[in-house]
């Protein structure tokens, strides 16, 4: 038999046995052999692979000091020369999930097959869905041993170059890759089978996997408008005339902030829309406030209906924007508004 496959396992400070939140700033370090859940992982790998070392880092350290954590992981991987990297599982722990995804990306960049495990809604998946192979988990860490077994199976397949089947069959989170497969039956036969199954209330699997949207829990209502700081956001491509930041007219991946503290109204002399998805003549020759009602909001502010307009507005172009980019930008804008105690937001979508 060939020499056993070398595996490096990544754990956070908690599963690595160092401690809880107090140890969350522990830098990347290595321990020989399996640690904690790594013992169960070694059991799942059996004599086919050996965990040669366990990398451990604190959750805060890895996510906040990424520039230091990455080279440390790279150096350890170069030293330990693994044939595969296994990270986590992280279940629904966001920082841990992000760290596991980063470790997998570092390994992949070195052509080392990598497998992790986490909940499909973990930030690690939301951020790096296309880059990581992750066993789909729930939120219950008592599933640990079963998950580790699946992770071991996937890792061994990857090392041996065995082609992976579809995500549902193999138990990993869909990565967005498509693969051609041959079916025994023609499409119309499969469609008819599905229809019959549906009519008989029997289970069936659609072959159309549509991207779902987030289920957003509505924010609780504001108690008192008169006491509210209101933020303004527009996807109408509004920029200071000249477009110094070069906001694009379509497929935007960036948003920009503009100071409106001393601005009562958006004028065509000073503002323009660079939106490429509709006729901007009215905005650009008559009144940009149609795509972000600053003049009206100021009027209501002066009349005391609201307490204050947040002194910067957020601007991007909503035109053929990728859902992933929109989700990221929305999250970043919301974080900043929340951090600055903005109570409510008016968002104009053109």
């Amino acid at each position: 038999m060939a020499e056993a496959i070398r595996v490096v396992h990544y754990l956070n400070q908690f599963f690595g046995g160092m401690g809880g939140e107090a140890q969350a700033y522990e830098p990347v370090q290595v321990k020989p052999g399996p640690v904690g859940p790594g013992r169960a992982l070694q059991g799942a790998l059996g004599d086919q692979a050996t965990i040669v070392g366990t990398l451990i880092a604190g959750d805060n350290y890895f996510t906040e000091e990424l520039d230091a954590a990455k080279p440390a992981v790279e150096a350890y991987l170069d030293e330990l020369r693994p044939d595969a990297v296994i990270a986590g599982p992280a279940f629904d722990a966001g920082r841990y999930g992000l760290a596991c995804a980063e470790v997998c990306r570092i390994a992949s960049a070195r052509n080392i097959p990598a497998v992790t495990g986490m909940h499909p809604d973990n930030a690690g998946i939301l951020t790096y869905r296309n880059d990581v192979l992750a066993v789909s988990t729930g939120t219950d860490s008592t599933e640990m041993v079963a998950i580790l077994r699946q992770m071991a199976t996937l890792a061994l397949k990857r090392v041996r170059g065995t082609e992976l089947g579809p995500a549902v069959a193999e138990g990993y989170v869909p990565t967005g890759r498509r693969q051609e497969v041959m079916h025994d039956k023609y499409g119309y036969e499969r469609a008819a089978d599905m229809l019959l199954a549906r009519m008989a209330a029997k289970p069936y699997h659609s072959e159309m996997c549509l991207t779902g949207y987030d289920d957003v829990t509505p924010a609780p209502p504001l108690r008192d408008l008169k006491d509210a700081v209101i933020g303004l956001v527009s996807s109408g491509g509004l920029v200071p005339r000249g477009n110094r930041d070069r906001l694009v007219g379509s497929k935007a991946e960036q948003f920009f902030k503009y100071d409106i503290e001393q601005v009562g109204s958006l004028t065509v002399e000073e503002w323009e829309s660079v939106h490429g998805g509709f006729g901007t003549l009215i905005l650009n020759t008559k009144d940009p406030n149609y795509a972000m009602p600053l003049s009206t909001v100021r009027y209501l502010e002066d009349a005391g209906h609201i307490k204050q307009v947040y002194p910067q507005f957020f601007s991007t172009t909503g035109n053929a924007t990728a859902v992933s980019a929109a989700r990221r930008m929305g999250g970043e804008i919301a974080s900043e508004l929340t951090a600055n105690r903005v109570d409510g937001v008016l968002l104009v979508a053109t």
Partner: protein
Amino acid sequence: MTAMPAIPLSVGASRVVRGVRVPHVCGDPALSEDRDHELRARIVTTALNALTTPVSTPTLFEPDQTVLEEVAR
């Protein structure tokens, strides 16, 4: 605030306010200045009031109907 409420409602936006047209969501340049000012105030006021309204699912808020009908003509 949008002229195409079906889209934000279908993707799960919690509070959606119907605007006028895509090129002028928050008002109507075809109206007189006074009426346009009034319409803008109604749209923005509807949006602000939406922020004070409890909702559990994506909900459409219509600005004052009589004004919008005039705009549509």
